[in-house]
């Protein structure tokens, strides 16, 4: 193998160069930036001091743990609401006798292609206590007493935003599961029928085990997406993630620190430290999935 296969290098080069320039270099530069600080207009190397204050100084650590906790809650809501609903919708859509399946499929998928800014703004208007249709719709069915200014209350705001995000993205798990369900051969289901497995139990006993790998992929996509989330919170609640930081997640915390906010000047070094922590959290989560779960998952040859 002494001969270099040039064609491989040439074919790989564009992808490697572009990917390095826009992904790998910025990533490592961010990690590097986290080890510096700015003192009197000079950038100096401070080692792990930024991380020390991030985890050790209550001014930073309180905000960090608050954001991390909120982020987990955001993720849990997605896992408990978005993915089961997505699977259920896919199961219903793949039912051969359902009419207008294509219409439903598109309708449910459309919010996914909307911009966060539009979704955030539209839902803010829907839920607005002043102009929103939410209070009047509840009033119409006589449940006005259930209405609260959800986005403005510490105890509800994050859950409300998580559900808005679920509404927006439920189409993704639906589509992936739908594709997985369609790829299950008819013969298997028919063989099951001969053995007496029909209706709902054919879903639980045959289809669900076969789509488990897809559910795993969806879970990990949800995890990465949620821990990188920022846009919806920023669009709906601003960089201070109000009320009283109750919707602050790692993305908004990082943005506020990195770029600054109002009178708070940006601190790229501390911001990079938070970005590095986010990267580490996501890396650990993905590793747990890859090595702890995916390798043990049973796969079936179809």
């Amino acid at each position, binding site marked *: 193998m002494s001969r270099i296969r040039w064609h491989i290098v040439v074919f790989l080069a564009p992808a490697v160069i572009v990917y390095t320039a826009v992904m790998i270099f910025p990533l490592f530069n961010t990690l590097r930036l986290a080890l510096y600080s700015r003192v009197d207009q000079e950038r100096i190397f401070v080692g792990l001091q930024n991380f020390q204050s991030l985890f050790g100084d209550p*001014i930073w650590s309180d905000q960090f743990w608050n954001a991390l906790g909120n982020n987990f809650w955001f993720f849990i809501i997605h896992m408990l609401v978005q993915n089961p609903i997505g699977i259920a919708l896919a199961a219903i859509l793949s039912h051969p006798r359902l009419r207008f399946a294509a219409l439903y499929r598109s309708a449910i998928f459309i919010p996914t292609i909307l911009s966060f800014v539009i979704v955030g703004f539209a839902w803010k208007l829907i839920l607005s*206590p002043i102009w929103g249709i939410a209070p009047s719709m509840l009033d119409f069915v006589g449940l006005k007493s259930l209405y609260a*200014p959800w986005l403005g209350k510490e105890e509800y705001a994050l859950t409300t935003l998580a559900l808005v995000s679920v509404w927006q993205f439920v189409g993704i798990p639906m589509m992936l599961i739908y594709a997985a369900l369609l790829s299950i051969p008819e013969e298997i289901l028919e063989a099951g029928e001969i053995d007496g497995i029909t209706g709902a139990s054919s879903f639980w006993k045959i289809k669900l085990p076969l789509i488990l790998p897809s559910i795993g992929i969806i879970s990990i996509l949800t995890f990465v997406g949620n821990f990188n989330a920022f846009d919806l919170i920023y669009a709906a609640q601003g960089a201070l993630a*109000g*009320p009283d930081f109750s919707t602050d997640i790692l993305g908004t915390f990082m943005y506020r620190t990195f770029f600054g906010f109002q009178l708070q000047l940006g601190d790229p070094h501390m911001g990079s430290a938070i970005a590095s922590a986010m990267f580490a959290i996501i890396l650990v989560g993905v590793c747990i999935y890859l090595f702890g779960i995916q390798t043990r998952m049973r796969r079936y040859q179809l």
Partner: protein
Amino acid sequence: MHMKTMSIALAGAILATGAAAQEITIESWRNDDLALWQEKIIPAFEAAHPGITVNFSPTAPAEYNAVLNSKLEAGSAGDLITCRPFDASLALYDAGHLTDLDDMEAMSNFSDVAKSAWQTDDGSASFCVPMASVIHGFIYNADAFAELGIEVPSTEAEFFAALDKIKEDGTYIPMAMGTNDQWEAATMGYNNIGPNYWKGEEGRRALIAGEQKLTDEAWVAPYATLAKWADYLGDGYEAQTYPDSQNLFTLGRAAVYPAGSWEISGFNAQADFAMGAFKPPVQNAGDTCYISDHTDIGLGMNAASANPEAARTFLAWVGSPEFASIFGNALPGFFPLSNTPVELEDPLAKEFIGWRGECESTIRSTYQILSRGTPNLENDTWGASVAAIKGTESPADLGAKLQEGLASWYAPQQ
């Protein structure tokens, strides 16, 4: 085609005059004022100074600081920089991006208070020409007040009595403000009514010097007053945003709007009822009143400007009474800081600026020096003011929390 003929004609005109045209660009966050600059300010300047063309190039307010910083780092920023007050601009000066303007004659047209927002801490260098300030107070629906027979309040007791009366009647929401965006609670709440408690400059300077603490009565009492506001805000005020509040008031659904004078031109355009303004109420009739007359906009020069002479000429003009008069009347609510009095035409703006004669002026308490560290006092004040209105924390606890945060990095408070 048309553009091309235009530019040829323009080039011809320049050649004909024989002067090499200098083009200068202004960086700003006031994208709302684009038309005003292009139609009034720049033509007035260019008419008086042939040979200099001015280009106004604004960015969205929320992105301005970040965009400007990157442009300055990259060397692509315009010749003139619109200055945010205090530390944001001081940081630019310290980094060598802004020029010291102390030697400019026009700087003598401004008082020390006006210049303080764009000076080094020791006052040895001024780096932006003060352009305008904004004044806090309350704008009210004059028709509604007349209809309900309410007198304009001047003391706190009268203020709450008026709100009670409006609430009892039920036609109007007594006060239009929400806590969703947080900053209104601090800016139009705490820093609006607060100066009457901490006696304006006296208290503000004592806080910077470390002689007063945020746990002192003067700094905690405004939170106790804000806590009483909740009863008079609209249903679901917790999720009411700033534009919601503006619309509630201009649609005539609310009677009082805790305001900054920058609202005037927008409200004039939107509201079809008579409006008036009253200053933050004092505790007892006859007390000295204090108003927040906040230095908000200045104009500085990029140290790396390619046309420093043209830029200086423009700055000198911005410091002149002529500019003050154009600017003040074109943008009612942004009050020129120049020592020469400016005759304003807008009645509401006149009302606001009239308070300068009756009351002591101060600026927002958190802006100078005190918001330099982490945690950031201004941002924390937003949260504290919201918590006070919602009643989620007691005023004393809020004061203690803010004091602890400030003392954690600010030596005079330790």
